[in-house]
């Protein structure tokens, strides 16, 4: 296995060590402005079925000098792209702005923003400080009631600007929608290159907006199914290193990799427990696979299923009390839910076709899955409640697979494969796709190569 102790992978310490956030005092709203205030707040309840996107104006953040001004423009662009991609915000075209950008340290002229149709407004300023540091100040305004919703200043290294922009986008998202955002996150996935019968597959990681892509393995061995640890800078994945297919842990800070547990046969389909102390995964058995739980500290293992069938793709409920998994114990592959200690398994999927890759939402309210082999022959990504009720299909095509939830449970990412047109594999492709859990706002996710097996990181890691 290749060790790549590359400090560039490290991210957790960037903010924690080098940045600080401070609340900004509310600016006094002038009396004449207060007199004009009134009207519907931009703050909405996003749990409503299909909220209209919030119209928001994000003029370029100002700068104390040329370099800071450029940084301000870049940050506004990242914040805008995050919010627009969510489908829950509508960006006001800067061409409609009246009187130029807002002075970042003053109360905005709300009348000028009201006429653009904006209900929310973001202002801010970047100030160059010594030693490559910058201070980023931002305020979020509720245009119609003419109030400041949020004011925060971040001090950080300049190289950290992109992450600060994502954090600001998360603050805006949370303050206006009432739930946590998912922009300060990363995606670990499998990159694929080369002809279809000799694919080179590499572990790769990128920010959720496809920036900062890095390859974590060199493609010497087949790698599959990476998953993020719930709190550490660590992933579990499957590697065929030395032709021994096993689940590995990969510490992204140190670059260290280690096989998880001692098993005679293949281990695969890993997923971390919500407390981060254990991994559940499958171990090949005589005629299928069993689900085991492995303690990361002691490496002690415990067998959770013993059906003699293929029991695969285990995933904990967010409270750690239950595990959903796929099994062909009843003939066709279906989804089951059992107690976290094993036992009490009950089938929850009953639609047409086979069900696979169940993933529990971080909110606990839904299980996402891959379904295939039913009427029409297509594959689909869907969700159902943990008791199997309320099944909805979010996306369907020739081949889609492997849902992963954003940490707020609002967005699902998966991958879609294009069908080969001929015996050379022409037309075959594999790309990442995201979709809102309502089934709206489906978008392609850019990757530098073909991609599969996405896994969404927790927020702020």
């Amino acid at each position, binding site marked *: 296995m290749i060790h790549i102790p590359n400090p560039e992978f490290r991210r957790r310490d960037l903010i924690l060590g080098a940045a600080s956030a401070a609340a900004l005092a509310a600016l006094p709203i002038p009396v004449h402005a207060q007199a004009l205030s009134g009207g519907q707040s931009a703050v909405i309840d996003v749990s409503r079925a299909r909220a209209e996107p919030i119209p928001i104006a994000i003029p370029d953040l100002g700068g104390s000098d040329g370099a800071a001004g450029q940084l301000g423009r870049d940050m506004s662009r990242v914040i805008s792209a995050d919010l627009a991609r969510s489908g829950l915000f509508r960006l006001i075209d800067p061409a409609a702005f009246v009187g130029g950008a807002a002075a970042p340290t003053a109360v905005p002229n709300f009348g000028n923003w009201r006429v653009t149709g904006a209900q929310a407004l973001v202002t801010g300023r970047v100030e160059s400080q010594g030693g490559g540091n910058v201070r980023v100040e931002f305020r979020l305004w509720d245009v119609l009631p003419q109030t400041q919703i949020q004011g925060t200043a971040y001090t950080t290294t300049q190289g950290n600007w992109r992450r600060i922009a994502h954090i600001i986008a998360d603050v805006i998202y949370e303050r206006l929608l009432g739930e946590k955002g998912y922009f300060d996150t990363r995606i670990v996935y499998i990159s694929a290159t080369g*002809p*279809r*019968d*000799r*694919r080179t*597959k590499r572990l790769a990681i990128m920010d959720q907006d496809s920036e900062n892509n890095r390859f974590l393995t060199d493609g010497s061995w*087949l790698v*599959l*199914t990476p998953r993020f640890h719930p709190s550490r800078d660590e992933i579990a994945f499957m590697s*065929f290193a030395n*032709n021994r*297919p096993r689940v590995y842990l990969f510490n992204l800070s140190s670059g260290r990799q280690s096989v998880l547990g001692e098993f005679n*046969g*293949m281990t*695969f*389909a890993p997923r971390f427990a919500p407390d981060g102390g254990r991994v559940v995964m*499958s171990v*090949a058995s*005589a*005629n*299928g*696979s069993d689900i085991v739980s492995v303690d990361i500290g002691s490496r002690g293992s415990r067998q959770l299923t013993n059906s003699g069938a*293929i029991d*695969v*793709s285990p995933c904990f409920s967010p409270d750690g009390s239950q595990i959903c998994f*796929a099994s*062909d114990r009843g003939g066709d*592959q279906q989804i089951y839910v059992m107690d976290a200690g094993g036992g009490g398994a009950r089938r929850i999927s009953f639609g047409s076709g086979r069900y*696979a*890759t169940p993933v529990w939402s971080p909110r606990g309210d839904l299980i996402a899955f*891959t379904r*295939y*082999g039913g009427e029409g022959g297509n594959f689909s990504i869907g969700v159902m409640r943990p008791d199997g009720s309320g099944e909805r299909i979010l996306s369907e095509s*020739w*081949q889609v*697979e*492997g849902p992963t939830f954003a940490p707020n449970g609002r967005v699902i990412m998966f991958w879609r*494969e294009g*069908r*080969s*047109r*001929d*015996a*050379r*594999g022409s037309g*075959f492709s594999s790309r990442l796709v995201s979709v809102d859990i309502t089934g709206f706002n489906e978008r392609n996710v850019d990757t530098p190569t073909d991609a*599969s*097996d996405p896994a969404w990181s927790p927020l702020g890691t």
Partner: protein
Amino acid sequence: MNTKIFGALAAVALLAACATQEQAATGGGATTAGPVPGSQEDLVANVGDRVFYDFNSATVRADGRGTLDRQAAWLAQYPSVNVLVAGNADERGTTEYNLALGQRRANAASNYLRAKGVAAARMNTISYGKDRPTAMGSNEQAWAQNRNAITSVR
């Protein structure tokens, strides 16, 4: 020069359009008089290196039993040869399930060989799931080729 063997070797290479790159490269030692006995090329040309399975099944079919019978006899003839049996699945399933299904197929072939007298210590198994297709199309013909267990000399 034995042209008959040559013809047979070439035909097999074409049939198994699937042949991996290494096989194609090493199998092209066509300036000698056919495959070295007991070699991978010998196995491919004169025995048959793979058996095929029905959709979502790991049951060795009648045609596969014939191939595995020949493999067992061949392995008896070359007792120093050890093999890797690799199970594969077509693309119409999920990665994780297909890893388990491919392992079932490798186990089925290897268990059959063991029942025919091949020592367990001479065989290893591995599953590539749907990640090592030999046929690159997206149709039933390609999938039928990709649902297999492939025996190779190691």
